[in-house]
């Protein structure tokens, strides 16, 4: 028995050694900061000293209406951006995946260009376009006598604008993944459907969408996690305004950490975000392990 265990250990040691460098980096750069973040969330951090305050930072958070607003905004962003991304990507990919290769490449390329452009640049360009005082869109609106026109200054329009800008920048990635996955669906299924006289809509809903489900799950999870951390667009386009209408959890964290110098409160936000992300990843991880 002992011999057997020894042998297994010997067999496995190479494997462990191979993952060791990554594991060491993972421990230093991921696990340690998480632990440090949790520790800081229980402290009041000042320049010269750290004082243990228990859960006071969390209680500060739960008494701040802006924090709740940031949670609601983040949820709105996640729900709408993810639904739009998945829906639109499915629509475009299922429309083009079986067309001629050059056409597919063209579509793929066109939607992918915004993904390659930095989010900062995209946000700045949108910022220039939407600037209420001298932006192009506001200017055009004024020329057409639409009176004052400030999409970023109106709390009813600012969320849709941010959602659209983020969606437009992100959707290319999802389209690429869907097209790749749809091209991989066995051709005989489509042929069988054709023989049975299925319409294109039926093919898409009965064959294509169920068969690319793993991709849908992957895109959904990846996008949820990405949108939970939405920050750049907010920082560049709205600064969280007007009157905190676009503050997200990440932006709230950033403000506390770097503008208000409340590192403890910021860490508490970080811990809460970490827990939410962890909970959201559970279905994905479970699905992965089930496949084994």
């Amino acid at each position, binding site marked *: 028995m002992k011999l057997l265990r020894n042998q297994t250990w010997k067999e496995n*040691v*190479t494997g462990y*050694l*191979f993952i*060791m*460098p990554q594991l*060491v980096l993972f421990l230093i750069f991921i696990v340690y900061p998480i632990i440090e973040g949790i520790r800081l969330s229980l402290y*009041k951090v*000042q*320049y*010269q000293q750290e004082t243990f305050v228990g859960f006071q930072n969390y209680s500060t958070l739960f008494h701040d209406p802006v924090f709740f607003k940031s949670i609601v905004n983040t949820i709105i962003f996640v729900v709408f951006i993810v639904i739009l991304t998945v829906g639109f990507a499915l629509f475009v990919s299922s429309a083009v995946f079986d067309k001629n290769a050059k056409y597919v490449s063209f579509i793929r390329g066109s939607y992918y260009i915004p993904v390659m452009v930095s989010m900062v640049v995209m946000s700045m360009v949108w910022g220039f376009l939407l*600037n*209420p*005082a*001298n932006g192009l869109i*506001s*200017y055009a609106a*004024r020329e057409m006598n639409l009176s*004052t*026109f*400030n999409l*970023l*200054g*109106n*709390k009813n329009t600012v969320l849709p604008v941010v959602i659209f800008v983020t969606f437009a920048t992100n959707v290319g990635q999802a389209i690429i993944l869907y097209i790749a996955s749809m091209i991989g669906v066995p051709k005989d299924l489509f042929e069988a459907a054709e023989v049975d006289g299925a319409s294109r809509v039926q093919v898409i809903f009965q064959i294509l969408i169920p068969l690319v489900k793993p991709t849908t799950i992957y895109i959904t999870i990846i996008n949820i996690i990405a949108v939970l951390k939405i920050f750049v667009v907010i920082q560049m386009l*709205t*600064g*969280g*305004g*007007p*009157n*905190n209408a676009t503050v997200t959890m990440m932006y709230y964290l950033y*403000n506390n*950490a*770097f*503008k*208000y*110098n409340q*590192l403890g409160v910021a860490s508490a936000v970080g811990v809460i975000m970490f827990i939410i992300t962890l909970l959201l990843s559970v279905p994905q991880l479970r699905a992965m392990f089930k496949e084994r």
Partner: protein
Amino acid sequence: MRNKRLSTVASFLLIIALLAGCSSNSASSGTDKGADTAASGKKKVEIALWLTPQWKGVFDATEADADYDSFFKYAADKFAKQYDKYDVKVNVQVVAGDQRDELLNVNLNGGTPPDVFFESAFAMGDYAHRGALVPLNDIVDDAAKKDIDQGYWDNVTYGKDIYFYPFSHNPGTFAYNADMLKAAGLESFVGGDNEIKTWTMDEYNQILKGLKENLPKDKYPNAYPMALYALNNQGDTWNLAYLRMFGSKFFDDQGNIAIADEKGIQAAQWLKDIYKAGYTNPGAESVSSNDANAMFQNQQLAISFTNAILFNNAKADMNAGKSPKFDIRLANIPSISGDPLTFTYVVGASVFKSSDATKTEVAKDFVKFFSSDPELVKASKNSIPVRSSVVAELKSQYPLFSAYDANAPHMFSFTGNVPGYSELRQVLYPELQAIYVGEKTPEQAMKDYQTKGNSVIQKARESSVLK
């Protein structure tokens, strides 16, 4: 079997290489780059100086290659040549004003603050309260105390110690486009070339109305009477001044905000009214002071905020052909009492605490040098010199110096010297946004600002290291 052994050995080598890479890296980053000994025999010391954009050029924006860091590069060079203690290199970096606190907080928490920071003292006061700055009492001599008026020293003294070495001051006013006022038939309100015109509140309202109704659309398309902005905390001192227009004292005797009184609410209501009447640029809630300044320079705004440095920079841009040329003049922010509302920023250098005593010593020596060298202090003419000797020498060339001087009795302290001022600035603009988008009444917004602001001040007071 052999293969397996080979791969085991290979992976070990990989780990060792990786660890060696890490350790050699940390070894090199651990050594103090600034502590080598130079060929001259003097110990080499590198210090970092950061500044926010102030004036361009060493002494004047008309110099070739004039930029925001020109003065400090020149001063560093002059300093290094005459300094006998160490071989000094000063790394000068210009940082954006709206990113200052983010950059400093990140670097303070990471243990890498700059050695010297040149900026308006009001924006940096919190760092003194937090214990991040070194007192500068020992580099201020009697000659400096005599030459610089006590009022400026009061501005840079926190608790018992001096934390900033005053270099110049930067009074805030309105700038207006005299051509636009004339085009709208408002000649009678235009002041002299070297005057800071004082309008009454009624006159000011007339000017705004006149500009809105009579500004020729063909000559000034897409133009508005007055700049109004509330995107972020930049330029918020003017917003604070507007809130005092109807006589509110802003702070009570205990150093708490007391703006939610009748006068404060009246002022907030006035801001809302001129905004709704179209007397300002649209979208104030998402326009920044930078946007407003650019619009003013492009003749899209007739009246905008300015300070001495911005005013000189605007003139320099016009002369260099970088922006359209027009007749730019100064006016005071009006108030209901008829007296002008004026404030000033004392601009100067502060020294951050460092674990390296040599760096602190050099940083202090450098600050003393450029803040007192007879040639270098003349650069303060780009705003207004704090040294009476410099004012006396240059008064005849710069007639505006006396105009600013005449304003001095109407000066108000916009910070109230309260702790937590940086965070306090973050509380005002969301409330102004709420007024402009109609989410809150001026009364509600002022009440909320007062409550939130006072809680910020209270918290900062509790954690201040200065008692």
